[in-house]
Structure formats: structure tokens, C-alpha cells
């Protein structure tokens, strides 16, 4: 692993933020719309345990089981689980997740820069009100 890190650092060529994020988005879309079509339909770990141990019967339909995209299919379509419909459901899911996630992390990033600005403001006020000669923002000897 360290070799690939070294290689990336050594070449000096850097993939731009925009290119990198675009690649990540395209990969996610391909995984959801294409690779997911080849997913195993066997019960997952918890479902298998529930069947084997004997509590699978307790499962109830979710209140959202009537959703137009329930189970990553289009239940209202003539062929709910056709590859095209499943790919569509995957793309919609990616778009929805992106919308919610960008809203959440955008809000976190904004609150971060706001609190950073507050701290800078406080520091400036303290510096301005401190008596001359004891200004903490100007150390007598450079610390580094």
C-alpha cells in the first residue's frame, strides 16, 4: 500500500478535486445501476439467521412498503424487477442520497466556517482591547 501512496506523491501529478469527485460519482452510479443487477438474491446474513434460528416469521412489512420504489424495484410497473426498472431505482436512490448527504454536510461545513469566523472575531476583539506590550497575538520571540 505504501508503494502506491509513494507513487502518487512521487509523480507530482495530482488529480484535481473536480475530476476526482466526478470519477467517484460515476463509479457510484455504475455500481447502483449496473453492478447491482448482478447482486446475489440469497437471504442476507440476518435473514438467514432468522430463518435458521426461527424468528423470520416475526418480520412485519414496513410502513413504507407501499413506496413506489420499495425493494429497489418499481412495484407499479408491469415488470417490477426488470433490469431497467432496478437500474432506475438505483439511480434514483443515488440521486436522493446525494441530495440529502450534500444538504447535511453542506450545513455542517457552513456551521464550521461560521464558528471559525466567530473565533477569529473574538481573537481580534481581545487583541484590540489588550494593553499595549502584552498583546498575546504578537509573541516576543517567534515560536517557529
Amino acid at each position: 500500500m505504501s508503494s502506491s501512496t509513494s507513487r502518487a506523491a512521487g509523480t507530482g501529478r495530482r488529480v484535481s478535486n473536480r475530476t476526482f469527485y466526478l470519477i467517484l460519482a460515476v463509479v457510484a452510479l455504475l455500481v447502483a445501476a449496473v453492478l447491482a443487477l448482478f447482486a446475489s438474491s440469497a437471504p442476507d446474513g440476518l435473514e438467514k439467521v432468522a430463518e435458521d434460528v426461527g424468528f423470520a416469521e416475526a418480520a412485519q412489512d414496513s410502513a413504507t412498503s407501499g413506496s413506489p420504489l420499495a425493494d429497489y424495484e418499481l412495484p407499479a410497473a408491469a415488470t417490477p424487477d426488470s433490469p431497467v426498472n432496478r437500474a432506475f431505482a438505483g439511480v434514483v436512490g443515488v440521486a436522493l442520497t446525494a441530495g440529502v448527504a450534500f444538504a447535511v454536510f453542506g450545513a455542517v461545513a457552513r456551521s464550521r466556517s461560521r464558528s471559525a469566523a466567530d473565533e477569529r472575531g473574538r481573537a481580534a476583539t481581545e487583541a484590540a482591547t489588550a494593553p499595549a506590550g502584552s498583546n498575546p497575538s504578537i509573541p516576543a520571540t517567534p515560536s517557529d
Partner: protein
Amino acid sequence: MHIPDGFIDAPVAIAAGAVAIGAVALSLRGARRELTETSAPMAGLTAVFIFAAQMVNFPVAAGTSGHLIGAALAAILIGPYAGVLAMTVVLSVQALVFADGGLTALGLNVVNLAVLATVAAWWVFRGVFRLTRGRLVVAAAAAGFVSVLAAAGGFVVEFLLGGTVPLAGDTVAAAMFGVHAFIGIGEAAITALVVAAVAGVRPDLVYALRRLRSSDPAVSPAAAEKVTA
């Protein structure tokens, strides 16, 4: 391993919901220290990638499948607090729009897959990264493996406290850990692969490398050598 409605009784599901809300509130504060000006899109895209990857069930032993959880991936790429948020976003979209995981069980699923898995992954990652003097892929694989067992352990405890079918706890525990040890191998492989790919192209966008290589004197000299070599 999304819990459907009906497996766990209401009191335990409600208690898990309260824990989940507390954890998300804490993570909203904590994530402010993890995000940089340029890494907010990375956090969003990590959530998107995890949603997509969770759709791909891979076969494991004996008529069983598993899929990536992604908690370890999130903790390493964007930080544990941001990771809890990313996982919670994914689980919420799944429960609300795709009926994947129960609605009353959303709190249980957030506790297991977003909180326990992410926190366990981060602790294990940090420990192994230091022990191996910065072996990113080894630490990522270990974190992925343990994250699945942590989530399975969460379910076992919840089932003991509020399972709707009276069953011996040790039977459920043995079955859960047995199956999820296999799924954990898949989680370890995918986590290591994706972390290595991102670190190979843009190591500066990997939270764990920014955090652990700069702050830990036990790791940073060796890591600095590797980066500048």
C-alpha cells in the same frame, strides 16, 4: 443486516431511537472538526458510494449473501463523526424510500450500522495503524472486519433485551457471529480496496491519513518517509 420491523419490541426500538438521535446530535458537532473546506463533497460522495455499494449483495457460504456496510470505509475516508452522519443518511433513505430496514427499526439500524460499526471501525483502525506503523490497507481490512461483528453484536444485545420470539441468546449469538464472520471478510476486502484506491490517487482526501500522520509522533516519522520517498 437491516433489521425489519417486528424482530425487536417497541420499548427497545424506542430506546435505540433515543440513542440514535443523541449520537447524531453529537456527530453533527464532531463532524465540524473533521471536515475541511474541500472535503464536504468527499463526505457527500462517500455516503452516495455506500448507498450504491449496499445494493450489491455478494454470495457467502451456504445460500447466504452479504453486502458492504461501509461504516469502516466512512470512518477512514471522512472521519468517525462524519461517518456516523453518512451512514445515518444512507439508512434513512433506505428505510423511507426503499422499505429496506424497518421504519420503527430505523433507530436500531442506526445504532448498529451507523454508530457501533463506525466507532468500532475507527478504534480498530487507529490501533492497527499505529501497531503496524502506518500500514493503511491492513488497518482498513481489520476495521472492516470488526465493524461487521460490532453491528452483529448490537443486534444480539437488542434481541436479548427485546426480541419478539423467545429464543436462547447463545443460539442467536452463535448464528449471528458465525454468518457475519464470513460477511466480515467481504467487508474487509472491499474496505481495503476502496481505501487503497482513494489513497493511491488523493491521500490528502483520506481523513485517517490527515489525522493520524500529522498528530501521532509514533507514526508520523515513518509515514512522512513513505510519502516523501
